[in-house]
């Protein structure tokens, strides 16, 4: 049943309703613009008064707030506040958050201010509603107001519950609107019944069963799917090139994709709209867009230098005592620099929005943090008045600040306008990572020191925070907003240390972003506190005083001191005056660190939110450098907690996220352009379940104190506590997170300097032979070149062949993989046109259907037989040996006839194929006559009587129709297969390695006959890899063969391998797997993190999730043991999108998410991890580049 509280969709619906009590307020006047602070957008008086509370005649209540729930649970907490003041049940409330159509304009949901500050109007409104309702009830019940009590919206006379009237009855048949009186008396905290009680979140049940909640789930009738194509300057937000770097868009490049509705180009904004989402995504990948040259971003290799070089304006916010004199007289000068890296908001769901444009009006469903600011942006972008736009706020993945939620809403608006239909735009993971306004890098420099007595001489603190509010991207890309550098004054959050330093100066260097940046949880306060709290630890150590004791000397805020004492006591703080006092546990060094901060948010001097203190216990592996945060004890004082469990969960979240930021997180940029290259989770790993510390939360009982923001506070001291604990464990100070294993290891045991290896370049193998061939070919051409044509025939009537013969021919054609080469990508089977890359040029395959003009319809069997035996086309011209007639020639006449019958029985398809045009001298086809004289042995081979019938059958299939040698046998200078020991000895083909099939195999487990059979039959095996790349279609075709034939092939191939039984193979395989799991040298570095996070959900040592699909241990994978990384790189680039059987499993292509260097890192790690006895692969990066750009990949 629908409640009335759920039905209004606009302010007008409230104003026009009957049976309701409204508490309204005049939109607050436009705030004066404040330099360098987040934008505030005034309410538009044209929209009338704002509504805060509506009490309906069915007993339900609508409560409205301008703030939104970013996953912190304020929907529940605000509902508790409204329910408390109204004395109704939680389930009577519908909490409306953030819609511009209904909710009041209360600015952006930032700075932990929703409960602390912005709940006040709602609280007052609810109290005012209750007061009015009680006055009405008093008249109805003929009782004094102080005789009444309320429960669940029923007013009764105390002690006589029969004598009662409901809110519903009191508002029925009337429309009452009262203007908010902020002076209305609200409840005393001691009278609270609901506030202060842990209350289940109202949103979780719907989310746990998949009901519509998220903006990602919005579906509108007629909705189309959009994707955007972003410019190459990923992460830039200012500079003249922004908005005018596009050179051209070639729409014909996506003409082949079905259901493309339109392509939208405005300045540097490019988007596509399609009927189906996967086609929009395909169009996004394949649309040919050319960009002009643009200047690279400033060098970010050294953040400290980059931040110093970034233009800034100095702003002194605190200056007391005489810092300069104090430092001049200091007994010990301690000048320190702390650097914070760029970090990501890293929302788990990339941003999404739906826009529905009607001429002159638009609705946008968005996951925005600031609906009214977004509406103003959209108005500017679309040249509409703000009141013509409805922004409906839906929930989104947690954002912890400004991510791409607004950007994608603007993208959707532009695309919807272009097509006149609702359009949903989903950003990709790569786009969200690359373009989200980063949590800014930050530079904190402290000049300070100690007096002779160990007291603090002076504290001269400077902080540089390159960030702003991040102009909505489409405004920049379309040129609506000029791409100027904009500096905000937000580096001042918690810039004044909490310690009572007599001589103190705090200076903010306000600066524009380098990379597009905006607020991220803790904003500038978190890095500032990192510096304050590390520095006081350094002072304490230098003074030889316990870090807690030293802090308490300077912490004059009693509430803070009490919190710090209580927290350290709870944690079992081990006082120490120097590091490394705890005994190491084997390889693990142990340390304990402390830090304290009160998050001071909003415009300087700002407001203090909750107080927080951390004690972190860490273990540092002295061999690998890994830091594990074992336990965190957090003390937290948030005053009155509306929902204590909600606060506790927020603290847990802050601890996990901060630990993640401290240990792992750092945005990586391209060394040349400084654009963002962290595009997926492997290159930006976040803390996972294995790494989560034990978290002990101690919440101070302060119900008598006003509520303080709790969304960010407990994150603020975290990094310093961890850094201080690492110092305690190792005696080494780390002043720039993340504290990665390689950083710590290098500090613990600096490696000797190594000369850099010059990169090696490889010459393509055919470079020399090609030249030789060119010369040699000239000689015998005239002599052997020309062959006669075989007369045309009218197409043979296939009915002369029996169904059995045709079926046998179909199977034999499958054995010969005819259709694999003679079918173009997305083309008709056997109609030709596929381009084959050979060392001599591109060869197009011919049409094998019986079409008389373009196919083989006019071919007699004799012509077909000659082509298969001698490589001569019907008209007498030579075919190139990319067509494996040197193998096919071994086929018996009987089998050739069956294949011919099958081919002629196909439906003729008229399909012209591109002409093969090789460069001279290969273009001179008669030269092939000489080649054939040298390398072709026409005709079937006789069976080997010494071998079994099965072996001979296998040999016939493998060497004949199966033409296994064509790929698996290396070729000589003239492109002919080599003999002897080279037979099936492995070769490169089309950018893949066809591995050796004989005893020289590099497979770590020998191939048994049974394994060979399984591989050929099912495409995967127990002790080896999965058939992929060019081998996949071979296995797919072999499916047409009877099992006896496949077994015969396996039997024949096995005869070239050292015989191995199933049991022996199994044993070898198990030993390898065990050794790989136990014996591998543990290497922890950026490469291992990349691999573990990017690939680890499937590829793990049996200690990860069990996912659908076979997943053989990587140590068994032959590709990792090969001398070249090509096959591994191919698979990483292109993934496994098709498999020979259902159970094989799929793998995504990483070519769009990882750059050459990152793929090379993964490959190098896998090689040393899974084939440690093999030499390292050299220069993998250029292999990746070559294979990424390989021509064959673009077919």
């Amino acid at each position, binding site marked *: 049943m629908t409640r009335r509280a759920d039905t209004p969709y606009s302010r007008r619906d409230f104003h026009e309703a009957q049976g309701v009590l409204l508490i309204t307020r005049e939109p607050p006047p436009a705030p004066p613009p404040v330099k360098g602070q987040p934008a505030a957008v005034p309410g538009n008086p044209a929209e009338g008064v704002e509504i805060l509370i509506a009490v309906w005649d069915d007993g339900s209540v609508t409560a409205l707030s301008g703030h939104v729930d970013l996953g*912190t649970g304020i929907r529940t907490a605000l509902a508790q506040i409204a329910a408390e003041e109204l004395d109704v049940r939680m389930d009577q409330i519908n909490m409306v958050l953030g819609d511009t159509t209904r909710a009041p304009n209360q600015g952006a949901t930032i700075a932990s201010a929703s409960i602390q500050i912005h709940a006040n109007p709602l609280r007052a409104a609810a109290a005012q509603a209750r007061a009015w309702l009680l006055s009405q009830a008093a008249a109805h019940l003929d009782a004094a107001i102080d005789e009444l009590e309320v429960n669940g919206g029923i007013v009764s006379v105390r002690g006589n519950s029969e004598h009662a009237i409901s809110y519903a009855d009191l508002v029925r048949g009337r429309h009452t609107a009262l203007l908010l009186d902020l002076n209305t008396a609200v409840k005393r905290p001691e009278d609270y019944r609901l506030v202060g009680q842990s209350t289940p*979140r109202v949103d979780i049940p719907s*989310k746990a069963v998949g009901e519509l909640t998220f903006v*990602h789930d919005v579906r509108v009738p007629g909705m189309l799917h959009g994707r955007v194509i972003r410019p190459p300057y990923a992460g830039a937000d200012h500079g003249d090139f922004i908005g005018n770097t596009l050179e051209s868009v070639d729409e014909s490049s996506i003409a082949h994709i079905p259901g493309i509705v339109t392509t939208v180009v405005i300045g540097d904004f490019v988007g596509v709209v399609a009927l*189906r989402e996967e086609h929009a995504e395909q169009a996004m990948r394949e649309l040919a867009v050319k960009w002009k040259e643009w200047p690279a971003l400033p060098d970010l290799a050294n953040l400290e230098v980059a931040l110093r070089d970034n233009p800034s304006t100095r702003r002194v916010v605190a200056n007391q005592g005489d810092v300069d004199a104090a430092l001049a007289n200091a007994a010990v000068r301690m000048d320190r620099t702390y650097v914070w890296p760029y970090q990501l908001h890293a929302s788990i769901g990339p941003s999404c929005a739906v826009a529905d444009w009607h001429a002159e009006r638009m609705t946008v469903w968005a996951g925005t943090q600031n609906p009214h600011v977004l509406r103003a942006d959209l108005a500017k972008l679309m040249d509409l008045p703000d009141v013509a736009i409805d922004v409906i706020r839906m929930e989104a993945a947690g954002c912890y600040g400004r991510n791409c939620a607004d950007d994608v809403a603007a993208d959707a608006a532009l695309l919807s306008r272009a097509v006149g239909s609702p359009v949903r735009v989903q950003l990709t993971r790569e786009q969200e990572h690359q373009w989200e306004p980063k949590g800014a890098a930050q530079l904190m420099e402290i000049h300070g020191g100690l007096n002779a007595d160990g007291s603090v001489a002076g504290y001269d603190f400077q902080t540089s925070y390159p960030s702003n509010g991040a102009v909505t991207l489409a405004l920049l890309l379309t040129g609506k907003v000029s791409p100027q550098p904009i500096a905000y004054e937000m580096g001042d959050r918690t810039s004044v240390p909490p310690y009572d330093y007599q001589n103190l100066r705090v200076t903010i260097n306000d600066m524009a972003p380098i990379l597009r940046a905006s607020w991220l949880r803790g904003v500038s306060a978190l890095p500032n506190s990192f510096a304050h709290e590390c520095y006081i630890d350094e002072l304490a150590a230098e003074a030889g005083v316990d870090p807690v004791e030293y802090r308490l000397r300077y912490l004059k805020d009693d509430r803070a001191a009490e919190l710090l004492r209580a927290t350290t006591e709870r944690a079992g703080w081990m006082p120490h005056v120097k590091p490394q006092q705890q005994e190491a546990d084997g390889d693990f060094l142990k340390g304990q660190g402390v830090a304290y901060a009160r998050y001071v948010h909003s415009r300087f001097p700002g407001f203090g939110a909750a107080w927080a203190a951390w004690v972190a216990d860490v273990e540092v592996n002295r061999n690998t450098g890994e830091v594990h945060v074992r336990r965190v004890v957090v003390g937290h004082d948030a005053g009155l907690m509306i929902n204590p469990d909600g606060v506790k969960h927020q603290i847990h979240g802050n601890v996990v996220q901060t630990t993640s930021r401290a240990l792992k997180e750092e945005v990586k940029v391209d060394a040349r352009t400084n654009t963002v290259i962290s595009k997926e989770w492997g290159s930006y790993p976040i803390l*996972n379940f294995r790494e*989560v510390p034990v978290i002990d939360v101690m919440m101070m009982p302060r119900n008598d104190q006003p509520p303080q923001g709790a969304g960010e506070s407990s994150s603020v001291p975290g990094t310093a506590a961890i850094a201080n604990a690492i110092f305690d464990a190792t005696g080494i100070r780390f002043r720039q997170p993340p504290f990665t294993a390689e950083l710590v290891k290098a500090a613990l045991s600096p490696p000797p300097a190594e000369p850099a290896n010059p990169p090696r370049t490889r010459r393509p193998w055919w470079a020399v032979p090609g030249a030789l061939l060119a010369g040699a070919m000239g000689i015998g051409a005239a002599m052997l070149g020309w062959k006669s044509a075989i007369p045309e025939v009218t197409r043979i009537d296939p009915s002369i062949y029996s169904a059995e013969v045709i079926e046998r021919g179909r199977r034999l054609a499958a054995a010969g993989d005819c259709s694999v080469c003679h079918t173009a990508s997305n083309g008709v089977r056997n109609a030709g046109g596929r381009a084959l890359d050979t060392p001599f040029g591109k060869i197009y395959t011919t049409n094998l259907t019986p079409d008389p003009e373009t196919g083989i319809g006019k071919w007699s069997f004799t012509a077909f037989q000659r082509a298969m035996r001698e490589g001569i086309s019907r008209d007498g011209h030579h075919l190139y040996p990319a067509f494996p007639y040197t193998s096919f020639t071994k086929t018996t006449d009987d089998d050739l006839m069956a294949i011919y019958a099958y081919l002629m029985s196909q439906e003729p398809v008229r399909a012209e194929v591109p002409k093969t045009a090789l460069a001279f001298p290969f273009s001179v086809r008669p030269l092939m006559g000489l080649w054939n004289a040298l390398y072709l042995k026409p005709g079937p081979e006789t069976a080997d009587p010494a071998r079994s019938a099965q072996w001979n059958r296998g040999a016939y299939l493998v060497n004949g129709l199966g033409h296994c040698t064509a790929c698996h046998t290396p070729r000589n200078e003239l492109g002919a297969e080599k003999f002897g020991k080279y037979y099936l000895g492995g070769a490169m083909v089309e950018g893949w390695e066809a591995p050796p099939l004989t005893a020289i195999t590099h497979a770590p487990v020998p191939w048994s006959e049974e394994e060979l059979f399984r591989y050929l039959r099912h495409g995967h095996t127990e002790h080896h890899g999965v058939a992929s790349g060019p081998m996949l279609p071979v296995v797919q075709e072999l499916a047409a063969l009877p099992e006896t034939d496949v077994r015969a092939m396996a039997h024949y191939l096995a005869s070239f391998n050292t015989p191995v039984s199933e049991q022996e193979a199994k044993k070898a395989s198990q030993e390898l797997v065990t050794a790989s799991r136990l014996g591998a040298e543990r290497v922890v570095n950026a490469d291992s993190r990349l691999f573990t996070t990017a690939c680890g959900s499937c590829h793990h040592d049996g200690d990860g*999730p069990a*996912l659908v699909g076979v997943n053989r241990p990587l140590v068994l994978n032959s590709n990792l043991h090969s001398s070249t990384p090509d096959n591994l790189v191919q698979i990483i680039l292109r993934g496994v999108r098709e498999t020979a059987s259902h159970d094989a499993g799929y793998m995504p292509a990483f070519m769009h998410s990882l750059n050459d260097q990152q793929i090379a890192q993964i490959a190098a790690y896998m090689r040393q991890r899974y084939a440690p006895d093999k030499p390292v692969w050299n220069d993998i990066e250029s292999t990746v580049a070559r294979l990424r750009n390989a021509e064959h990949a673009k077919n």
Partner: protein
Amino acid sequence: MNTSPLRVTVNGQQCCLDVPGDAPLLFVLRNDLGLNGPKYGCGLGQCGACTVLIDGKSARSCVIPTSGAAGRHVTTLEGLGSKTALHYVQQAFIEEQAAQCGYCLNGMIMSTVALLQKNPCPTDEQIRNALAHNLCRCGTHVEILKAVRRAMQLAAAEKEPK
């Protein structure tokens, strides 16, 4: 490209899907079948937000082409239970309040279902390993671990003779 309709059983219903066979299963579940449970997170099988069950096993629907689900049984969050008839894992997650923004919740619940079907009594380490590649940015890990343990209890209680 697949041109003939694909038959997939989704949440117990036989579906005849006239969609491109190479379309990610995730998109087809969401766009063609209107399901909200599986979420797009990375498209690379790294984060687990899109997790569904295929023939009872955990699967990342963003990397599986729809043709790969042909002839198989797919279960999504919606197929586990509803608000009035919760699956015990859903119930456990609600009771432990194991969501902040809730975007990863689908993957956490589905992965837990798959884990407990295979191993009804996992150790803490086994739970952490099984969920190690389900990413949560809000830091709900503590509550999620508690929810998995509660789900184990609820499952055990369900099995007890009444």
